[in-house]
């Protein structure tokens, strides 16, 4: 890999979605063809570049790009194994969501604005993944907030504005506290690059209190995005946004950014030894476990499909936090791989929920009776996703839960296995009735708002194709987990590099 | 203040006499202004008394200054006289106009 590419590849990955986005902003509503081609061109280039980077990182290359930003802290983009995991996830799912969004917003107004902010959001996510130090992470974290806000309030109805205000209140106050935390860490140890063993060890002896405070501040802020227990309020509210937005928000961009931030914080800023030295892992584990159970328990009571999926997201993301908080290598693998699996599974469920809402006007769970007969493909994809969520063997969900269980046993926290089992039961309790209602109950009365979207398929092909694609991906990741290409092996590579240094 | 060398006793007596009369005229003018009933008579009192008072003060001061300063003092006195009378007429016109308007409102 030539030194030029070594320096400018990460930047070009971000620009590949940023530039089309900025151009789309200037397009008029009527230029549909140009907008779609620009969008797909951006997605294609990004995938190509990510693949290129994937090979290089697998071979052990290092990517580094820096820009002078603050005194003592530059704007650094660094392509290492962990960041690539998240970049691959977001690029692939961005492809699926873009196709889905084009189909979903066929006649609705303001599409230029939507797709503009859509690509800004993805470039912020990718930037966040590639961030080389805490200051860059802070920059992209704030940009992500600003880019996702117009998407949440896209419909402009009073409810979506209320949801937008709540979303802003949470994330902006989070942003301010994050700035506080990063400034504290910067004043203690400056902001060097993310190093596998963490760079805080030197300062641990002197000021435990300040470091604990910094950790607490950072976790509080990342918890807002990762929807940890007390700070999850905005997520169910943001369901009022259009389907592709809630899909992108909950499966890929915002929620995963929070989880990814916690991973970076635990492994690359504090590092395992200082976490143990400051006993920070124990409270985090408790918080994550509580969120898992609370999320699943609240999902039971939800009647609206998307709100139930939202609460299930809250509990699923805490699996990742839990896996990371256990500080064991196996648990880390489980957590990392769950980051990818949960993303794919959740996005499938949201695509199906979007299809039901768009084609048949179904929003409530009780209206799902007999949908299997009317829309068999979408229902099959939904079932696969639901099984993955519960963790039934052939799907990817099982693998991540399996490794999480192994990790818990390895670290000696046996009560966590009980938590996993209990949450698996709860998942089954709120997903299986939906599946049963779809396949085994007759259709009760007419569909609320039936639309004939396409003559050959059950709905518009652009809505159907992404759902099928992610469902199949889900299955493949489960069956071929041990092969070279699977996310599992990539997570093992990351953890091996992460834990090898000490 | 005795810039022109030692003044003879007579001139000091004379100048202080003149100054006192000037002062007397000023006091009379101001008392007149305060006590007289309507504005015309008050105007009359002020302009007449003050210009006369100033004249005698200027005369009193003549003893102290040299020729050039005395001429200036005279010029000052003339100016005050002229501007005093013009402004007195202006005020009188104004007072008369106001009186006419008051009558119009009554009738």
């Amino acid at each position, binding site marked *: 890999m030539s030194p030029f590419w070594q320096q400018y590849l990460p930047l070009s990955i971000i620009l590949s979605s940023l530039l089309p986005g900025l151009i789309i902003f200037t397009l008029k509503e009527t230029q549909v063809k140009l907008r779609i081609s620009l969008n797909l061109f951006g997605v294609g280039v990004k995938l190509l570049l990510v693949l290129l980077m994937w090979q290089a990182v697998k071979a052990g290359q290092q990517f580094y790009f820096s820009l002078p930003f603050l005194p003592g802290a530059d704007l650094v983009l660094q392509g290492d194994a962990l960041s690539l995991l998240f970049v691959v996830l977001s690029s692939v799912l961005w492809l699926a969501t873009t196709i889905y969004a084009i189909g979903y917003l066929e006649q609705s107004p303001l599409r230029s604005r939507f797709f503009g902010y859509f690509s800004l959001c993805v470039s912020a996510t990718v930037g966040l993944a590639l961030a080389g130090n805490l200051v860059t992470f802070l920059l992209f974290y704030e940009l992500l907030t600003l880019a996702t806000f117009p998407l949440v309030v896209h419909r402009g109805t009073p409810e979506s504005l209320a949801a937008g205000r709540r979303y802003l209140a949470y994330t902006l106050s989070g942003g301010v506290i994050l700035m506080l935390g990063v400034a504290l860490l910067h004043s203690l140890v400056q902001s060097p690059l993310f190093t596998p063993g963490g760079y805080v060890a030197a300062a641990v002896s002197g000021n435990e209190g300040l470091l604990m405070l910094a950790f607490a501040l950072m976790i509080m802020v990342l918890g807002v995005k990762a929807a940890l227990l007390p700070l999850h309020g905005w997520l169910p509210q943001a369901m009022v946004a259009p389907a592709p937005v809630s899909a992108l928000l909950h499966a890929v961009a915002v929620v995963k950014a929070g989880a990814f931030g916690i991973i970076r914080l635990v492994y690359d800023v504090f590092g395992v030894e200082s976490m143990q030295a400051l006993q920070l892992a124990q409270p985090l584990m408790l918080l994550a476990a509580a969120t898992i159970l609370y999320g699943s328990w609240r999902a039971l009571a939800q009647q609206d499909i998307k709100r139930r999926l939202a609460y299930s997201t809250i509990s699923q993301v805490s699996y990742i936090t839990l896996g990371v908080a256990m500080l064991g290598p196996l648990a880390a693998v489980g957590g990392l791989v769950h980051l990818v699996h949960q993303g794919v599974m959740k996005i499938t469920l949201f695509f199906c929920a979007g299809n039901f809402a768009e084609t048949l006007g179904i929003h409530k769970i009780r209206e799902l009776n007999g949908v299997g007969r009317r829309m068999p493909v979408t229902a099959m994809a939904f079932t696969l996703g639901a099984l993955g969520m519960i963790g039934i063997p052939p799907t990817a969900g099982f693998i991540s839960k399996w490794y999480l269980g192994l990790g818990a046993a390895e670290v000696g926290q046996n009560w966590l296995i009980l938590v996993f089992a209990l949450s698996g039961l709860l998942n089954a309790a709120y997903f299986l009735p939906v599946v049963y209602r779809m396949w085994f109950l007759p259709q009760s009365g007419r569909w609320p708002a039936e639309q004939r979207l396409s003559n050959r398929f059950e709905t518009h092909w652009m809505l159907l194709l992404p759902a099928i694609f992610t469902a199949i991906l889900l299955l493949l990741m489960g069956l071929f987990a041990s092969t070279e290409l699977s996310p599992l092996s990539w997570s093992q590579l990351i953890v091996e590099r992460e834990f090898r240094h000490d | 203040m005795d810039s022109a060398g030692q003044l003879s006793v007579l001139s000091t007596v004379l100048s202080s006499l003149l100054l006192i009369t000037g002062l007397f005229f000023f006091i009379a003018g101001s008392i007149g202004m305060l006590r007289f009933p309507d504005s015309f008579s008050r105007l009359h009192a002020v302009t007449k008394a003050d210009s006369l008072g100033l004249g005698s003060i200027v005369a009193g001061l003549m003893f102290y200054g040299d020729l050039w300063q005395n001429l200036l003092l005279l010029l000052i006195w003339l100016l005050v006289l*002229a*501007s005093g009378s*013009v402004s007195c*007429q*202006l005020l009188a*016109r104004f007072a008369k106009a106001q009186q006419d308007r008051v009558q119009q409102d009554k009738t």
Partner: protein
Amino acid sequence: MRLLLFDAILCLLLLTLALASILSRQLAHAVILYIAFGLMMALAWARLAAPDLALAEAAIGAGLTGALCFSALAHQQPQLKPDVLNWPKRLWPAVFVLLMLGGVLAALLQLPPSASQLIAVTQAGIGNSGVSHPVTAVLLNFRSWDTLLELVVLLLALLGARQVAPEVKPATSWPLSLGWSRLLAPMVILLAGYLLWAGASQPGGAFQAGALLAAGAVVLRLNQQLSWLSWSNFWIRLLIVSGVLVFVLMALLAILLTPGNTDVVWLRWPPHLAAGIILLVELFATLAIALTLTLLVAGEPASTGAEHGCGEGA
């Protein structure tokens, strides 16, 4: 010691006039008392050996400000009830004022009795400043940048006042006052010229001469004379602007004339030309000040009328 008596009476008079003007019931009384206070202030300057200031104060402070206040009074709403403030509303400001007064007095009493060394420095510098009267030397040579900015402030006040341009009520005129103002005009010009010329060696100078000229012009304007004296007339505008313009051009000229080796210093008059430059600058400054003050006090002649009429306007 005789002077101490005079000083005591003067100070007492000043304080009582000021207090009476502030506390008077009628607004008209306040203005009249203020004008008397201004005249007394001119007397005080004369007593404290500041003849330049006495001239300026009498012409500008008491005269023009008094005229301005009276014209503002004319537009004031007729005062229905005398304004009396109940006691508590007066208490807090009084307490605050006494506090501030105490602090300022404490500081003033601790000031050293000796005058500043700058007097010696100015004495030394007067030699090649081009004028013999120290105040004019400081005004137009040592701190000429202040004077330039001050002329700009005056011009600015005119711009601002024109911008707001209240519609001026045409005043009455009758033969006697017309005759008197015509008689007064040549003498005012003569006096102003003398003041300007004397400025180089005795108390006098641009501001006092300008103010005097303005007084003469205002009297004429109030008698419907000098109708050509308005902002829309280009030459008048040129004269008003010339006060500052000549100053700046002279400064630029001085820079051009400085010999090659010395570095460029803004507003430095070459010693041999200083007298001529200062006189020229003072001449134009006097004209500019006179015209500006006239337009400020007398406002636009009724014929042109300001752009915004009275009422909703603009």
